[in-house]
């Protein structure tokens, strides 16, 4: 035996208790992190001596099935660092107000001792004092205040704004409710009870993939991560699973061990490439070219050369491929694919209810035109039960839809196919497609199937004349494998091989091919086209709606599972409604004046036909059109105070609400009153008060951050871009000079001093995730679990729920003195998805141009009169209002009653009594959580049962078997504290979680024959809206990413020798979740101690830059100063700055911009909107909050990089 002796003797080892004592603790409490993250991980928080000491993951997720890996553990390097924040020096412990403002306030209070509203008015209406505190924003000088004082300031600002401008000038922003839904609801409920505005997040963050509403009529639905394990071929596209889906990455890795092939598409050797079988380093933003060629190969080999019955059946039943499309004759004799053939066009069917919204296929057996069930027209007709995907018509007669007309007709017609390869619309190709002639009420038209259009569009020739590619090697025409090489830098053989393995896997497994897709694709201007090219490759192989198959878009945390009961609480619909829900990209584009720096959008977006009103001009004018026609919301609403409009109407003799509305319509028609977005620089239209909570609205998500500082805050900024819009805008009012600093008051609730807090007027100390009770859910798994207070809110902090209850209380108290009576408010709202307004506008007509009448809810927004009751604001806030009981709950147009449950609840739970009535109490956060759980279908089996009963009436198919076994399930907050609980199958989501099944999107559509909420009720490969035709996006296509000359990012910036121009990308990082955690000592220590940019070694050589050297990165929008990480892992030509840095930590001053403090990643971006996504009133293209509207894209951006020689803080 060696001389090394093991020691057994315990008596020699008593010192070991040194470490044993460290490990001991007093209790552990289940909670999680309410950060904007899909993780939704269950954590155990360890408390020792009354102090949170560390956290470790909860390992007790219920096992779904022993044949798949379990969910434990979930939680990443960021989450496990959270406890650092609680006692750290960056923790906000007390209420703070900037000293300049606090002095002004205290002085004004002295001058107006009995009237805080007058005091506030005196500050904000005096240009000098206004300028003084606005210019001090972000520049230090915070002073500690008290809750009483800050509540009074906020209350005064709220009511002053209501009195002077109207409540819709109060806006609130908080991201993604799912991760701490009650905290989100706190501020939203306050805003909506006030009559204020809730700003959307999913589209603003560019997390919303517009292709999802385009194709599926769904905001987003995806598989839970465990479902990846069932996949046999996984492509990750623009998604760095290891980095951004850290707790779920193991399912991807383990799926490989179960026999899945993994191919990673990413320009850089990203972390997920490590687990790939193949890493395909295609050039950034060119994925669409690759996947169009994959589609080309699949169509050629699996549809043209041979037919796979399963693929054919899938396309027939679940997509619009068999529907007939009319072909419009062009002056040159060729044809353009136009609208679907409608029932209204044929003499035999034009009398049908909703005849504009029912469509035709050809029956294979008879060759007759037949009208299948399940379209939007069937959805909203009086006769229920015909909205389903059975292969039959309304009379129940079976149909076998014909996919191809080839061989069924002698007639062909030359179809014009656009080729946008060079970024313009200059090239078109003529390809013949088989057609049929149909006699319509307006004469004969040619029609063909959407499937035939696909062959033509993808360039797959089956023997027809015209300009077709000669083979895979032909690079002269889209979309061959050889053609894509010039964009992607990837050999055509890679695409061919990929497509073959992909289709073969799908054929062998019944569709178990999946794509994990993310921001690397979705953040490009033409994201929808890239997505559709990929979705089509999935649909061609029958992969969507299958376990282990489908498109899994994980960008942002969209899935708040118990939606039905949560939404009315969050948006105050239990008392009044509808809520004012603004799509934020439009809001910030217009109100932060970024539109003023923009030119005609067609410079960046090639269109097919610029003669259409949506396909030319300035984006701001398209936005104005969109609000006039009721496509998108517009808050603030008008160039006039809403209350004044009501008074005016009454003075003019209006007695009823209808008469008031008529007055408003008249004012609009005569253009005496305009929409605020038609004149955003009119001071009457400014947003005035801005509440930010749970987010970093001024930095992380603020695309065009420096424009925020300039136009909203009125403080210093580093943007130097020229205002260029004047010659391009026709509708929106141009002011040569605008007032900087639109916002009167900015309030930030925060537990840490981040950039938004640093630039706000008032900073409120918010409880951390370990100091409050809340609920948490995600799309990454199918469980719901709680946040809980492991320790009480530290120092003077409070939970968001408590804080907004306090603001509400202070405002109500002031209102009891100054605005004691209820008051009438005019409320406009856009045409809404999942309502009959989906059929409002078969064509685009602008009433303001005399093209049609102004009819609210049809050709223009809905207009309604509602009542605000400020004196009872607190009472309403803490009481679950009567509309909840009386209206019942609904999601996506499916409704269930809860009146009996509401009445019963009054006997078993805390209540509020006032004005002679009794309501379930929302006063305490845990009570509110329990209400959400008790009334939601996903956590109460009885409600799920009722929801499926309602769904069954719509479809005419009995779906209640999905709720039968779980009807008795009831879930309480205490249940969740004991163990995460799996959520139930409901018609509000498209997957199925019964038994041992893993959730995968659209399984209900496939298995239950429930239509998608689209025009035809099927998945849409073809989009026939006239704006899509004009943009040349009715068929999937490829439009290259924007070049520098069209983004105009560097018109005024120095491009001197020693600098290099790069495409600037901001993917999600390893050491932060957005900006959270990135400022913790842990993450800073494990990374580079800063927020570095990543650059290729050869690019670095060009400017003499070494690893860890300082750089200045700038363009016309702003500047970033940081260090560089140099690595061949990054390809040449791009620079990564991982989203999202704070400018609060170690940021030097910029010599390039006058030695002022440099900014963060969004200092280099600017909001660019694609107007196509503004259309409305047309099936799936109809607005819903966070569902539809242009997202805030940011990848088409360029920067100059040069070395920073001297670092000055």
């Amino acid at each position, binding site marked *: 035996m060696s001389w090394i002796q*093991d020691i*057994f003797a315990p008596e020699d080892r008593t010192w070991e*208790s040194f470490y044993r004592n460290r490990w001991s603790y007093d209790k552990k409490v289940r909670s999680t992190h309410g950060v904007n993250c899909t993780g939704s991980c269950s954590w155990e928080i360890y408390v020792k001596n009354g102090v949170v000491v560390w956290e470790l993951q909860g390992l007790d997720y219920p096992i779904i099935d022993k044949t798949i890996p379990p969910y434990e553990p979930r939680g990443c390097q960021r989450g496990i660092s959270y406890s650092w924040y609680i006692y750290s020096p960056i923790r906000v412990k007390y209420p*703070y107000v900037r000293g300049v403002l606090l002095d002004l306030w205290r002085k004004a209070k002295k001058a107006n001792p009995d009237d805080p509203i007058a005091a506030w008015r005196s500050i904000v209406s005096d240009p000098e004092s206004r300028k003084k505190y606005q210019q001090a924003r972000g520049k230090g000088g915070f002073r500690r205040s008290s809750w009483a004082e800050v509540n009074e300031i906020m209350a005064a600002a709220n009511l002053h704004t209501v009195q002077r401008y109207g409540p819709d000038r109060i806006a609130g922003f908080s991201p993604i409710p799912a991760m701490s839904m009650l905290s989100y609801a706190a501020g939203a409920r306050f805003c909506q009870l006030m009559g204020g505005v809730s700003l959307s997040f999913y589209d603003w963050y560019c997390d919303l993939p517009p292709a999802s509403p385009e194709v599926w009529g769904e905001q987003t639905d995806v598989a839970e991560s465990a479902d990846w394990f069932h996949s*046999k071929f996984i492509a990750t596209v623009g998604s760095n699973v290891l980095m951004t889906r850290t707790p779920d*990455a193991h399912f991807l890795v383990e799926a*490989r061990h179960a*026999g899945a092939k993994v191919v990673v598409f990413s320009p850089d050797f990203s972390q997920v490439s490590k687990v790939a079988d193949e890493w395909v380093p295609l050039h950034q933003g060119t994925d669409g070219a690759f996947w169009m060629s994959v589609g080309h190969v699949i169509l050629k080999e699996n549809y043209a050369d041979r037919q796979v019955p399963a693929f054919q059946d899938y396309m027939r039943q679940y997509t619009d491929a068999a529907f007939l499309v009319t072909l419009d004759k062009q002056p040159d004799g060729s044809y353009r694919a136009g609208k679907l053939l409608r029932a209204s066009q044929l003499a035999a069917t034009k009398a049908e209810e909703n005849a504009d919204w029912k469509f035709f296929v050809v029956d294979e057996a008879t060759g007759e035109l037949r009208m299948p069930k399940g379209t939007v027209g069937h959805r909203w007709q009086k006769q229920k039960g015909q909205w389903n995907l059975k292969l039959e018509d309304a009379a129940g007669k079976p149909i076998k839809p014909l996919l191809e007309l080839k061989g069924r007709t002698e007639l062909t017609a030359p179809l014009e196919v656009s080729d946008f390869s060079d970024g313009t619309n200059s090239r078109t190709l003529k390809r013949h497609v088989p057609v049929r002639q149909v006699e319509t009420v307006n004469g004969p038209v040619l029609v063909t199937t959407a499937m035939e259009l696909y062959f033509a569009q993808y360039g797959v020739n089956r023997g027809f004349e015209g300009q077709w590619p000669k083979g895979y090697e032909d690079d002269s025409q889209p979309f061959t494998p050889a053609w894509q090489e010039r964009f992607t830098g990837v050999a055509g053989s890679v695409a061919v091989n990929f497509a073959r393995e992909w289709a073969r896997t799908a054929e062998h497994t019944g569709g178990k091919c999946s794509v994990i897709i993310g921001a690397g694709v979705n953040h490009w201007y033409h994201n929808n086209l890239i997505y559709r090219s990929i979705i089509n490759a999935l649909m061609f192989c029958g992969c969507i709606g299958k376990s282990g198959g489908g498109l899994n878009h994980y960008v942002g945390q969209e899935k708040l599972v118990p939606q039905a009961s949560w939404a009315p609480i969050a948006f105050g619909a239990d008392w009044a409604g509808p809520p004012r829900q603004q799509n934020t990209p439009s809001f910030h584009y217009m109100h932060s004046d970024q539109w003023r720096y923009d030119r005609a959008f067609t410079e960046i977006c090639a269109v097919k036909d610029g003669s259409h009103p949506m396909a030319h001009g300035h984006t701001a004018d398209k936005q104005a059109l969109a609000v006039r026609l009721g496509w998108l919301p517009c808050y603030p609403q008008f160039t006039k105070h809403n209350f004044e409009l009501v008074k005016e109407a009454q003075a003019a003799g209006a007695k009823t609400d209808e008469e008031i509305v008529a007055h408003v319509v008249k004012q609009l028609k005569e253009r005496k009153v305009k929409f605020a977005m038609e004149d955003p620089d009119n001071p009457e239209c400014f947003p005035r008060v801005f509440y930010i909570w749970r987010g970093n609205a001024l930095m992380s998500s603020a695309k065009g951050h420096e424009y925020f500082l300039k136009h909203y805050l009125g403080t*210093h900024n580093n943007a130097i871009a020229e205002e260029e819009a004047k010659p391009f805008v026709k509708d929106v009012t141009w002011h040569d000079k605008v007032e900087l600093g639109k916002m009167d008051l900015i309030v930030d609730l925060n537990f840490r001093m981040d950039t938004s807090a640093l630039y706000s007027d008032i900073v409120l100390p918010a409880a951390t995730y370990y100091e409050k009770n809340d609920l948490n859910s995600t799309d990454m798994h199918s469980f719901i679990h709680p946040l809980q207070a492991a320790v009480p809110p530290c120092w003077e902090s409070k939970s968001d729920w408590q804080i907004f209850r306090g603001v509400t209380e202070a405002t109500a108290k002031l209102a009891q003195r100054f605005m004691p009576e209820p008051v009438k408010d005019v409320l406009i709202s856009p045409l809404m998805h999942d309502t009959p307004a989906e059929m409002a506008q078969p064509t685009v007509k602008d009433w303001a141009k005399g093209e049609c009448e102004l009819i609210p809810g049809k050709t223009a927004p809905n207009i309604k009169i509602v009542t605000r009751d400020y004196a009872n604001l607190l009472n309403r806030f803490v009481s679950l209002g009567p509309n909840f009981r009386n209206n019942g709950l609904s999601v996506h147009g499916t409704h269930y009653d809860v009146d009996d449950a509401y009445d019963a609840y009054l006997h078993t739970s805390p209540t509020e009594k006032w004005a002679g009535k009794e309501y379930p109490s929302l006063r305490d956060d845990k009570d509110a959580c329990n209400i959400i759980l008790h009334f939601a279908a996903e956590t109460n089996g009885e409600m799920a049962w009722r929801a499926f009963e309602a769904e069954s009436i719509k479809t005419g198919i009995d779906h209640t078997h999905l709720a039968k076994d779980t009807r008795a399930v009831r879930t309480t907050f205490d249940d969740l504290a004991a163990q995460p609980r799996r959520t139930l199958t409901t018609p509000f989501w498209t997957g199925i979680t019964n038994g041992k099944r893993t959730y995968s999107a659209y399984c209900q559509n496939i298995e239950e024959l429930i239509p998608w909420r689209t025009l035809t009720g099927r998945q849409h490969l073809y989009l026939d809206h006239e704006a899509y035709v004009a943009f040349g996006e009715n068929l999937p296509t490829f439009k290259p990413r924007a070049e520098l000359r069209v983004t105009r990012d560097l018109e005024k910036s120095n491009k001197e020798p020693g600098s290099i121009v790069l495409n600037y990308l901001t993917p999600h990082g390893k050491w932060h979740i957005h900006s959270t955690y990135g400022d913790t000592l842990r993450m800073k220590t494990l990374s580079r101690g800063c927020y570095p940019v990543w650059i290729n*070694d050869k690019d670095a050589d060009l400017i003499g830059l070494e690893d860890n050297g300082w750089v200045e990165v700038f363009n016309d929008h702003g500047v970033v100063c940081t260090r560089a990480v140099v690595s061949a892992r990054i390809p040449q030509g791009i620079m990564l700055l991982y989203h999202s840095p704070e400018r609060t930590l170690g940021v030097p001053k910029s010599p390039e911009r006058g030695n002022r403090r440099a900014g963060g990643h969004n200092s280099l971006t600017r909001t660019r909107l694609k107007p196509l996504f503004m259309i409305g009133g047309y099936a799936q293209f109809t607005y819903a909050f966070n569902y539809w509207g242009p997202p805030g894209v940011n990848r088409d951006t360029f920067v100059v990089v040069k070395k920073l020689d001297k670092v000055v803080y």
Partner: protein
Amino acid sequence: MDVRAHVSVIFHLDKCIGCHTCSVACKNVWTDRPGAEYMWWNNVETKPGTGYPTHWEKQDKFNGGWKWNGNGKLDLRCQNKADAFLKLFYNPNQPNLDDYYEPFTYKYEDLFTAKAGDDQPTAVPVSLITGEPIEIKSGPNWDDDLSGSPIYAENDLNLDKLTDEERAQLFEVERLTMFYLPRICNHCANPSCVAACPSGAIYKRGEDGIVLINQEKCRGWRACVAACPYKKIYYNWKTGKSEKCILCFPRLETGQPPACFHSCVGRIRYIGVLLYDAERVPAAMKVQDRALVESQRNAFLDPNDPKVVAAALKNGISEAFIDAAQKSPAWNYVMKWKLALPLHIEYRTMPMLFYVPPLLPIMGKTADGAYEHSADKFFTSLEQSRLPLKYLASLFSAGNEQVVEQVMKKLMAVRYFKRWQSVRDLPENEVQKILRQAQTTPEEVEEIYAMTALPTQYERYILPPIQREEAIQNTCSPEACKGCSGFSLEPTTQGERA
């Protein structure tokens, strides 16, 4: 036969996602205090890369581990009898601050206290040691994800054995690659730190083999810091004592896996008992480099062998402990499936932590400027893997490529078999050939698959029952201990004596 029980661990690198959750879990629980800032008992390194402390593998600089001159003796590389005494006072083999990093923080409080001025305040970085402003030039994870870095990845010592051409390719994008190497103390069976300690403060625990530094006996000579070839012992500048990974023995003793295991989101970590014959150590480490992996395996004892069981019982190892050894994932990975290999066994400390090497993507080449790869294999392949076997052999088998190749073949075979089984799109005879070449069977493949992809925490962590009452009764009655647990004016070291 002198049977010892050892709690041994497996890190499955094919599953590691490089997230560092393990590192933070450890830091929060154990080293979140003055004097321990720079200690990362658990760290994760990007390979190729230089690691932490920088170039820790450079034994011609640090002189860690053992050297064997081919005869009957192993010598510590860092000292001989003559200079051992001198090196107490000056040890040139130790890493210094430049090899680690200067811990830092930020003046966060300035964000609250900055006076009203004409520009935005920012929290500047300051040293945690001096409090003075600092320029951050290094950190404990400085070359994270830095594959393709001319400064870091290219200087990985394990690349030394590659040809110039092979080396150059690794830094062209079409062959670029990286993987992650999490590291904790190896709790070696032949630990050089124990041998080097002049105070006799370091020992292996008899019941589970955990290597500990007695904080009462340690005099801070730091000979162990130099002697450990893995640089997993750190000197605490505040207490003046050295500290290291303790394999979370207080958690093990209460039936919980170590914190870094608990928190491993990649689910790469396994823990289980291995039985070994102490009589065969350190002779097992006195063979040629190429034979070291096999030689170490020869020291392990089959827990199902009745003779071994009898000898173990005789040595005082409990039945429950032996039962744990029989169910041990460590035994399966190291001995039964031979998939897990020790890190740098050529340091001859006989590490008891074993790694399953990673599969990496197939390489591509640029022809005429377009990225391309050959499509002759369905999955990635060994022949065309982005990382030469030579490199993996340098890490995990003291240069013996055959050992690593056998492992990789078996890992691939599992995937091919499961593919064939669930998709049937590969020819059956080809799959059978793959199994044969990997020297495995469908039955073994199923076992490996289940333990790789499906295991719950209860299958990954087979913890032996450590019966604390038996240890406690040597110094104090468990009944008394129960009554007065925690009562002490010296809460750190004296707790249980009260």
